[in-house]
């Protein structure tokens, strides 16, 4: 197997990781906004949230990406495939993270809300010292799960010619027909990334559990 292939695959893996990282950061920020919408006082805002989540979760990622890429040429022309690809992933993971956060907020027992209100905590303090820490601890396993899903989802972008690990592998295969080795290596790269994220997540959970809070890992 030519050494060049390994270098290409490594580059591809780095690109996949960067795509996923961008999507996770952007998706988390978007999800905080969406989750806030999910709990809005205004029914119209809550409906917008539900419709958004329904559409994004009910449509395959590939179709969403194609809609964005081909049906909105303005986006495609002005921005490179990577930005557009990250954007699609952000839209996708934003919905997934939002549902995770929403579940976390709903999991907070009512007396905790009421204790915080009864202490007269101003909204910023309540968010910073109560909501964020509690939601983080409740949702950590699911959050890590979505992160792993994002890394795997990045491979879908290969179908719309975003060059990352899967596309790199496919291109090499079409040239050299070394199907087993190349796909084996690609699988190994993905495995290391996904498994690594999962392990990091478990370490973080254990660290948080040591601080007296029992996690909810099944």
């Amino acid at each position, binding site marked *: 197997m030519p050494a060049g292939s390994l270098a290409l695959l490594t580059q591809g893996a780095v690109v996949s990781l960067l795509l996923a990282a961008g999507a996770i950061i952007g998706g988390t920020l978007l999800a905080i906004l969406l989750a806030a919408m999910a709990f809005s006082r205004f029914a119209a805002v809550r409906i917008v949230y539900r419709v958004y989540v329904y559409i994004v979760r009910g449509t395959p990622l590939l179709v969403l990406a194609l809609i964005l890429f081909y049906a909105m040429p303005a986006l495609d022309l002005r921005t490179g495939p990577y930005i557009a690809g990250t954007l699609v992933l952000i839209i996708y993971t934003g919905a997934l993270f939002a549902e995770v956060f929403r579940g976390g907020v709903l999991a907070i027992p009512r007396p905790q809300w009421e204790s915080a209100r009864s202490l007269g*905590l101003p909204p910023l*303090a309540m968010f910073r010292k109560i909501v964020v820490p509690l939601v983080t601890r409740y949702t950590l396993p699911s959050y890590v799960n979505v992160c792993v899903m994002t890394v795997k989802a990045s491979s879908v972008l290969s179908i719309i010619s975003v060059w990352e690990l899967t596309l790199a592998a496919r291109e090499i295969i079409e040239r050299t027909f070394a199907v087993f080795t190349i796909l084996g290596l690609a699988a190994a790269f993905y495995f290391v990334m996904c498994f690594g994220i999962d392990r990091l997540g478990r370490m973080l959970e254990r660290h948080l559990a040591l601080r*007296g809070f029992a996690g909810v890992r099944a």
Partner: protein
Amino acid sequence: MIAIRGLQKSFGAVQVLHGIDLDIADGEVVALIGRSGCGKTTLLRCINFLEEYEAGEICLDGEPLWYRPGSDGARRRVPEAEARRMRQQMGIVFQQYNLFPHMTVLDNVVLGPRFSQAVSAPEAEALGRRLLARVGLEGKMAAYPAQLSGGQQQRVAIARALAMRPKVLLFDEITSALDPELVGEVEDVIRSLLSDRIMMVLVTHAVGFAREVAHRIAYIADGAIAELGPPSEVLDRPKDPGLKEFLRRVRA
């Protein structure tokens, strides 16, 4: 002092409170007893506005709480910031899940003073230590709630409520979820508070304990105060037939 006049509260189509009138003098302890669903917890939660109510007035030391006539004369909720200020004058302890599990015991207690009352960190910590010593848990300052027993958690919750220097303490069946052998330590703390002469309102099933600590007991039935008076009268010489039945059941 607290003055409640004509308090009415409905959940949807069901009216739960049918016009409550109650006065609580400075330093007085009032126990609310009654069957499940009679409205005693709802009444408690209206006092610190965890529940909204449709009609009636609650005044603390002469200041009307929670609602104010708007510029058009209609009844309006006070702004959120003011509601927060009003709430700080009352401490509440719930049946369970009081404490924030991700913070140490001391952090739980100083949270209110530090972030709602802008007390400085060293001052808040000193206050926290004093109160925890008072409820007998000074040694558990650095522990997390999950490491404490139910009774200990409730005692910390009381310390946390006291840290806000409230004018009134509200207790919502705080020993109902505890194993029997842990109830005593919590009741001890409440006994020790009597000398502070803070107003207290206790919703409780423990009629014996109510007899001991309350100055007056209110028996609530169907959303109204059916009988009100000192324990010797309400518990030993009940007049209301529902109350007689209730006490018979509780004692049997």
